[in-house]
């Protein structure tokens, strides 16, 4: 007997919540408890009184499950609003990565050259290592990390996606 699977889509959600202790556990826990997927999750305060936070989640789910995820999130008491940026239309997604590359000679030169191509900045340097900071779409960062693996990457720290809709409407 095989466990059945359904066709899945990638969705980016912006969840506006009360910034209260445990809110992240509540949101992330909802996903885990109900078996939804979290591919990426970022959070930070967004109101000037620090009482409201924005949690950006990337999830992979079929369309009916997506409807459920949004309904389940919306009925949580501390949740103000849930926006499915993917369904809403055009939006901007960005990620930031810090990448540590160790090497000398040709590898070191190649690393610097590639960093220039990808508009990555050097934020730390020693004779035998660099830390690059790069921002961009997931694809761009994935590519850069892949390339750095060839020239001495030893550590990578990525933030996960933040996203915002295009145009003048909030969310």
């Amino acid at each position, binding site marked *: *007997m095989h466990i059945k699977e359904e066709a899945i889509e990638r969705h980016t959600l912006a969840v506006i919540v*009360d910034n209260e*202790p*445990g809110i992240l*556990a*509540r949101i992330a*826990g*909802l996903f885990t*408890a109900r078996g939804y997927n979290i591919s990426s999750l970022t959070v930070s305060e967004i109101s000037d009184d620090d009482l409201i936070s924005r949690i950006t989640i990337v999830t992979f789910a079929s369309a*009916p499950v997506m*409807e*459920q995820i949004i*309904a*389940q999130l*919306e*009925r*949580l*008491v*501390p*949740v*103000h609003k849930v926006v499915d940026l993917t369904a809403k239309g055009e939006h901007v997604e960005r990620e930031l990565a810090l990448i540590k590359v160790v090497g000398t000679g040709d590898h070191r030169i190649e690393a610097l050259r590639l960093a220039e191509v990808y508009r990555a900045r050097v934020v730390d340097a020693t004779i035998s290592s660099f830390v690059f900071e790069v921002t961009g779409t997931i694809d761009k960062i994935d590519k850069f990390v892949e390339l750095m693996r060839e020239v001495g990457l030893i550590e990578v720290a990525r933030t996960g996606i933040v996203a915002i809709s295009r145009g003048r409407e909030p969310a």
Partner: protein
Amino acid sequence: MTEKSGADILIEALTDLGVEVVFGYPGGAVLPIYDALFKQDRIKHILVRHEQAATHAAEGYARSTGKPGVVLVTSGPGATNAITGITDALLDSIPMVVITGQVPTTLIGTDAFQEADTVGITRHCTKHNYLVKRPELLGATVHEAFHIATSGRPGPVVIDIPKDVQVATARYEAPGPIQHKTYRPQTEPDLAKIQEAVDMLAAAERPIFYTGGGVINSGPEATRLLRELVALTGAPVTSTLMGLGALPASSDQWLGMLGMHGTYEANLAMNQADLIIAVGSRFDDRVTGRLDAFAPNSRKVHIDIDRSSVNKNVRVDLPIIADCARALDAMVESWKTRGHPKPDLGEWWSRIEGWRARRCLDFPEAGDVIMPQRAIRALYEATKHRAPIITTEVGQHQMWAAQHFGFEAPNKWLTSGGLGTMGYGLPAAIGAQLGEPDALVIDIAGEASIQMNIQELATATQYRLPVKIFILNNEYMGMVRQWQELTYQSRYSESYSDALPDFVKLAEAYGWKGIRIDKRGELDDGIQAMLNHDGPVLVDCRVAKLANCFPMIPSGAAHTEMMLQASEVSGEMDDEAKALV
């Protein structure tokens, strides 16, 4: 304004909210609250013998009275013992507020004595929960907790109060009506959708109402309006386990419960309907059976207060998010305004009569052996004039009670549906008896289930509650055994009730009256003796040991594959069906 201790603020807030009864059990982390309780006499505390029973008693109280149930337990094991009842309330949408003690704020996270991460553990089995770290926030939190527990789709709310917060002082002022900034359940329906639903109903040739626990939760108005709409439309009505009593069982339009152990006519009517009006029900798997064969040629209107219930298991054509009383009111109004005549459903009803003629609830009887269905019917005949409140445990007896006991009103049928918790019935009966002191309250139980919270016999004795327990004793965990017969070729693994106590002696040890019924001839007299006794009574009624509960739609089967009797049982199931509960 003077400052008061957190414990006093809690008691005052509960009093302001109209709380009359609290079900609880003391412990170190709640001593300040218990001292505050001791000093007042407006709120009555009911001491249970296990915290799980406090939660089920609160559920029984809530389901019978419509008021929220309130629980008070200590930290650590007190809170963890309450988890089952809290989860039960979540799945059956019962309004409940659970106050748990906690270690002092300075000790949280240090593995202190009787410390548990109550808020972490209950985060996903409550509607909402709070950890109150400052006494000045406690009063408002309590009021908000009750608001959340009792509004929208009701559910359990936990308030975790550290001991130092119970002792520290602050000011308290009762807040006005709560206008929550984010939590605003939608209770009023979209009137355009109401009109669409009404027109669909008027045009349907084979309509059916599929009602659920939401009608009961909404309150007596929802029941009254449902009955009015049903009378106006002449349509047949079926209900889930949780919704029994919204339509009187004696009504001509009542088809009986639907689903896994529902009636033949209810399930076939759902299967053949062209329009299903779901009111306060959630298309649960016990009801739908195999989804791709569920009501294939029907359009569905779904009235529910919880948006996440819509399109969760079954795609519906017209969702209406509203409190079902508001939606039913609008539908009745719209039906009358549009001047729809009573539809001619003669053809549909004659089909239904054909299905009713199968008499699917008939059962064989022979000699002295008491069939469990016979015991339920005898109980019903002997008590129906008193409109008793019936609670049950979980299993075959629960299904037979749902099939054979008729309910004419809501709030009379208290059972654990969503979670299916054995051990629910006795404490729930205690809660119901406290909420309705003049009612006849009977817990219909199995001999396995009743042992799970048997210690509560003491609670009934302490508070002089004349609850009746009617055990259908077949010496097996009946429902498990039935499935083992169906699926595992009768390999009865651990489903035999070994080492049963002498229930009569056990009852008497706790100050109850015990009655034993062995033979069919003793049944009516035994029931009468139970009813005549002024005080709590436990009846050990011996019934046929291997009776099976039919009709049955096995897991993974469609409504059209309903089994009506034992001869249809093969003793085997394929892997896909075996993987389903």
